[in-house]
């Protein structure tokens, strides 16, 4: 075989990466956009390290030490933690009721009409766009606004907080679920749809096996965020760590505040452990 004709002499021409110019351009554009944004945000890190400011900060942090350890406060802290866990868990559970159906409807990975493309394609696209728009609205409005609205209807208490969490987090979970399902290997689900399978079965036989780990870890992460977001529940009298934090801050009790923050830390560590245990189980 005359394979010698295929390989040119290396010195004949220099091969350049055709992508290099585009990469350089993208980097420059990113810098040009970033610079005014930093200016707008008054990003001046040097200010933090001026002598007077350092003193203010250390003074603020010193007030947090030592954390409160009185048995009475610890009792309150324990009760508030349980309440927070209950609110976050109930909020996420309701959020899943919103997110899962919308993700199934909205994800392109389960589109039957795009195979071919087939009949009713425009209708499928309209439904998906509407679904994404709904998810956007749900998560675009901050949970505190929803909470303030529900307080007017339901009165002070955890119910308003749980509903507010459910709606905002439903929007976030739904959007990210949609994208996770699209970024895993969609060929198995597509092959099933091509064989006449329905959407739900294509999801559980074709997509979930590949995406389960990522879906779980994002859900647990959102649960962790819901625990933190329960701070806003303090405003609507939902109880929990948020309300306790609100009281401690108002009384300028740094020791109590730091004890509560340590509890937050413990909960985040717990969420982490839960997430990795679940991921391992699903591996």
């Amino acid at each position, binding site marked *: *075989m005359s394979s010698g004709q295929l390989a040119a002499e290396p010195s004949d021409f220099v091969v350049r990466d055709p992508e290099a110019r585009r990469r350089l351009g993208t980097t420059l554009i990113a810098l040009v956009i970033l610079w005014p944004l930093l200016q707008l945000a008054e990003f001046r890190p040097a200010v933090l390290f001026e002598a007077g400011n350092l003193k203010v900060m250390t003074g603020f942090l010193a007030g947090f030490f030592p954390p409160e350890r009185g048995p009475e406060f610890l009792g309150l802290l324990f009760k508030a933690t349980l309440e927070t866990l209950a609110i976050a868990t109930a909020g996420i559970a309701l959020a899943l009721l919103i997110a899962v159906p919308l993700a199934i409807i909205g994800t392109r990975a389960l589109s*039957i*009409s795009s*195979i*071919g*493309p*087939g*009949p*009713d394609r425009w209708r499928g696209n309209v439904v998906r766009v509407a679904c994404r728009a709904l998810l956007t609205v749900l998560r675009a409005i901050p949970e505190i606004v929803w909470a303030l609205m529900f307080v007017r209807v339901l009165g002070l208490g955890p119910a308003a907080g749980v509903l507010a969490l459910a709606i905002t987090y439903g929007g976030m979970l739904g959007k990210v679920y949609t994208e996770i399902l699209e970024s895993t*290997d969609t*060929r*198995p689900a*597509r*092959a*099933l749809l*091509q*064989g*006449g*399978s*329905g959407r*739900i*079965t*294509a999801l*559980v*036989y*074709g*997509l979930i*096996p*590949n995406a*389960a780990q990522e879906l779980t870890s994002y859900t647990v992460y959102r649960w962790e965020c819901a625990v933190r977001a329960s701070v806003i529940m303090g405003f609507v009298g939902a109880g929990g760590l948020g309300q306790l934090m609100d009281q401690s801050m108002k009384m300028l009790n740094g020791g109590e505040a730091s004890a509560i923050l340590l509890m937050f830390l413990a909960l985040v560590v717990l969420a982490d452990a839960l997430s990795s245990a679940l991921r391992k189980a699903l591996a």
Partner: protein
Amino acid sequence: MSIVTHQLGLEHGNGFRALHGLNLKLTAGERVAIIGPSGAGKTSLIRLLGSALRPTNGRLELLGENPWQQSAAGLRQLRTRIGTIHQAPPIPPRLRVITAILAGRLGRWPAWKGLLSLLYPVDIAGAQQALARLDLADRLFERCDRLSGGQLQRVGIARVLYQQPDLILADEPVSALDPILADAAIAQIVAEAEQRGATVLASLHAVDLALKWFPRVIGLRSGQLAFDLPAAEVSTDMLRDLYSSEGSIVPTQANDPALLHALTEPLPEITDPKVVRLDSCRGRG
């Protein structure tokens, strides 16, 4: 008629014509092999005939119906009667073998049955039977990521056997199998089709397999029919001509370099190409 095409063509968005002017007729129960060099349009044709792609030109009729004039429900119904064996089995690695096989009937089962089957497999016997035909019965409850590429490809075949479609489409179904297993796997597909009167259309890399198992062979080159003949009438010259873009090396199952080399040398004039071809390639049968 299982498949009827008239001036069937497929043009990609970038203007590349993958297929054009294909006129084919396959009667029910017929077995046809498609051969041709890589890039000839074999996979595109299989996808068109599996209603996975819509043709840009011409007419197409599958199992007596035009898939693209059906309602969504009608198209779905039609698709449950077509089983496609993909070259790379579209099976999530974490799925167990039994689940992967039972998924073959998801189109025929109501959704609740498919969901129930994830809690406890609803047809263990059926899946085992399909798997046993491909000599893998002992792997029934293993996860697919524990299988080798060839074993996974056989699971993909077992899924379609379990599906029991009226039209079996196979895109290089045995590309990851050694010659003996490949032969056995094709034999099972053929047996299943004969038993139920199903039609088979398979694209094959190995020309010897095509000539051995398929009474009719279609040669595809640059998206067009090069020939469409009974296997016995396919001559060595036609094959050399078909693969002229690949140095006229006719691909067979023999991956023995010596044999491959022998095929690049001018072959002696042969009266019955089929016999010699099979003999020269099936040294280990």
